């Protein structure tokens, strides 16, 4: 029902517009809370209870459990807030890139090098 920001689509890309911002509000709010060490500790001590506190949907909880970044994006996560969740998991941006593209971190880094050289 909700208006999309645009009707343009880009393969493998999840535009974070109003529809997503509404769907992912609780999820992103939880991730935003991870700016605080206290919140990170609380999550680590009992992830399920912490997800419950922010009223995550079952699909969102499942994606958090599975560290399923694509699932989190589909359920309204914004990469900027999700990065605080993956940071808490000690994953860097190349690890996350690998997870999303089905590559190992090293394969993903090799792709970045190739793209960086303009060999696309």
């Amino acid at each position: 029902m909700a208006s999309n920001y645009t009707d343009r689509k880009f393969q493998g890309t999840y535009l974070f517009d109003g529809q997503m911002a509404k769907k992912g509000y609780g999820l992103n709010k939880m991730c935003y809370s991870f700016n605080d060490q206290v919140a990170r500790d609380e999550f680590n001590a009992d992830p399920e209870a912490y997800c419950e506190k922010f009223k995550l949907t079952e699909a969102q909880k499942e994606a958090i459990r599975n560290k399923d970044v694509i699932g989190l994006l589909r359920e309204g996560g914004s990469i900027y807030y999700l990065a605080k969740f993956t940071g808490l998991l000690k994953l860097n941006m190349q690890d996350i890139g690998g997870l999303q593209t089905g590559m190992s971190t090293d394969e993903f880094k090799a792709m970045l090098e190739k793209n960086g050289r303009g060999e696309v």
Partner: protein
Amino acid sequence: MAKIIGAVTTSHIPAIANAMANGLEETPYWKPFFDGYPPVRDWLNEKKPDVIILFYNDHGLEFFIDKKPTFAIGVADEYYNSDEGWGIPTIPPVTGESDLSWHIANSIVDEGFDMTICQEMKVDHGLTVPLNLMWPGHQYGHVKVIPVCINCEQYPMAQPWRTFELGRAIGRAVASYEEDINVVVFGTGGMSHQLDGERAGFINRAFDIDCLDKLVSDPEALTKYSNMDLVEQGGAQAVELNMLIAMRGTLLGKVTERHRNYHAPISNTGSGLMLLENEISTAE
């Protein structure tokens, strides 16, 4: 009168903060990136600008989507960094410049820019990494910084034509400020990159280099892009190019490129370092 004497484009990614904290500048991975900076540092140390106007985006330290401003400007005398959640070191306070900040805010709101005006504002790596790149070892306390924060996280976002106009309005505001000070503008972030989705890892070197060329000599061409065009050509986070476009808007004089270093990839991004001088004609 106050003068914008030049501008710098630079990356602001958090990985740079970690590399500097861990002394990795001379490693093979980082060397081609850091090797670009000494000429810009030298220029800044020679010109000794009084104020830096710094365009950046907040990646979720100060602002959340509960209340997300399109454009925010800091008007404080000091700004603090804080834990961003993923382990980059928290850095010393940044010095502000409330008088020129308020002058700019007064001038551009009157011109129809609907700023969120901030007397307290935590600043994240988007602002702090560029400062530390220019004055390593966090030696930037003597420079007064005016943060201008552009939403790059949630649609709708200001389009490139609008961020360019914001820059122009800020340029006019500085030109009307009565104190005899020198200002340098930083446009930070970008360039092509995509962090999220199955398309993660996308970089477009040719597009980045074309953008740098256009920033020098044909910035109006960049304002013809929509944010969707930027996403298509530069990846989901290429909307951060808006900070470079806003920077270019502030340069109302004759612009000359003094230095450039494009390198990709740094982390997942294309990194464009550029130093521009702005020659203001006496007629202005």
